């Protein structure tokens, strides 16, 4: 097993200390930061993501693997920036105003990062003003919204209209998800996509950006 396979394997196991140690070791052996990212960390999270999609692992395990990936990413980040390595795409994500449930949104955020996206997580209870502020500031490719309640999901339309009516640098794809949502609701509010679960949100993001 080479060092990149080892990194991927430790990400799958969720061993943060090993991932951090092996990432440093790989860099000291002359492996590029981009290779460590794509063939080590992302490769490992890709395995986790597939297992999750196939119902082969549990949610807390996904998050433990995400933490392991993050520990490697912290070492790589300055090097990736220096080498001008571009992410898969940039996503801003948040649970809509009035809704304090953030579990689903957090898992989507972790899986997107695991797939190589740059994710700006705005947290829970996010108003349209904040979504707009970050849409301008971060210039994302995708804006993701989550809601767990039927009383809060209706706010998504307001955010969507705010973003669509603003003059932004580029067209932002808007995707939605959460327990009470359906494809027909996404169609009704004219969102660009709906994902029924976290793993599908990654596939949806990739397909919207033709990755």
């Amino acid at each position: 097993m080479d060092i990149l396979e080892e990194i991927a394997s430790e990400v799958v196991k969720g061993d943060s200390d090993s991932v951090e140690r092996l990432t440093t070791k790989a860099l000291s052996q002359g492996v590029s930061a981009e290779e460590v990212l794509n063939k080590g960390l992302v490769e490992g999270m890709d395995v986790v993501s597939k297992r999750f999609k196939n119902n082969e692992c549990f949610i807390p395990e996904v998050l433990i693997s995400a933490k392991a990936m993050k520990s490697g990413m912290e070492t790589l980040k300055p090097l990736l920036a220096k080498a001008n390595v571009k992410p898969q795409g940039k996503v801003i994500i948040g649970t809509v105003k009035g809704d304090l449930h953030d579990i689903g949104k957090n898992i989507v955020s972790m899986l997107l990062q695991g797939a190589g996206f740059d994710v700006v997580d705005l947290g829970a209870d996010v108003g349209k003003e904040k979504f707009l502020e970050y849409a301008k500031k971060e210039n994302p490719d995708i804006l993701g919204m989550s809601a767990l309640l039927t009383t809060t999901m209706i706010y998504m339309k307001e955010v969507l209209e705010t973003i669509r009516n603003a003059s932004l640098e580029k067209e932002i794809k808007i995707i939605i998800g959460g327990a009470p949502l359906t494809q027909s609701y996404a169609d009704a509010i004219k969102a660009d996509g709906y994902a029924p679960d976290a793993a599908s949100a990654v596939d949806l993001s990739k397909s919207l950006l033709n990755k």
Partner: protein
Amino acid sequence: MKSGVIPVLSIDEDTIPRAYEKAIKEVWEKGTSVRTEYDRPGDPPSRDATVIITVRQPFGQPRFHRSFADGLGGLSEYVMEVVHGAHDYWVKPVEEILKGRESKDTRWTYTYHQRLFEYRIEDEVVNQIAYMIDRLSKTSYTRRAQAITWNPKLDPPTDDPPCLQRIWGRLCDDDEGGYVFNMNTHWRSRDLFKAWFENVIALTTLMRKMAEAISSKTGTRVRLGRYADISDSLHIYGSYFREIEGDAEKGIQSFFEKLENRTFEERTWNSEFVKPFFINDGLGKGLRPMLEREKEMPQNVRKAIEKELRLMEKDDYVV
């Protein structure tokens, strides 16, 4: 053929994860089909039963099943919500709660902690857990140590009334001159697949806090007895059936295959593994990030969580 009769199931296991797995299996196989207010169009009816679950060793290891809808950091925050009232400040004012579905305020209508520790009645606030501790400390064998959550004025108009209804506790003597604290919790309705486990981790933590408080008050050793968990409607929602049944054509494993394909150790964690994640999961959840993130949390609650954090940092403290 539909009998129209709700089955009554009884489960008795040593540990929480064993009880959780057994309950899912039993409700799945023996439960009846019933619609719920939360079904989305096209969802099959829920699988449902009245169930009493006994966990003989609430802190028996491994204590944590890996199947729950959150991370370990999120679970520790939920425990703080129930035991220390971390999110009581998210509850909206009574006048908004009374508006029911007309209320535009999307804050919560209750927390278990608020109802148990600060139950509002006739313009008074009653700490029912303090009452239980006092009552049991004074009369160990009392049958009156209980705390309720249901508020007949506030709860009927809301969409999400409390699932937990009542906690009841009793002390029994052991052979060594100490007490054994036994606790029952009674639930109106319960999501077995995605809520039961987290509920039980929080309620058994509260159970231990109560035992410690009684021990401190009486000067007598109090150990934990069995935890009994009684649900009128313990259900598996129709929207979860895909996860439970799997889909062989699409390569999606069923929940039961997932159990079969792993050893019990591979589908659970012990407290020692979980504890660092409870403190800080490295992803923005856990006690330290919670204290950092929730600036509006009242000082007294913050102090209680800081105390909990200091306890957790001790080697011998079991989460």
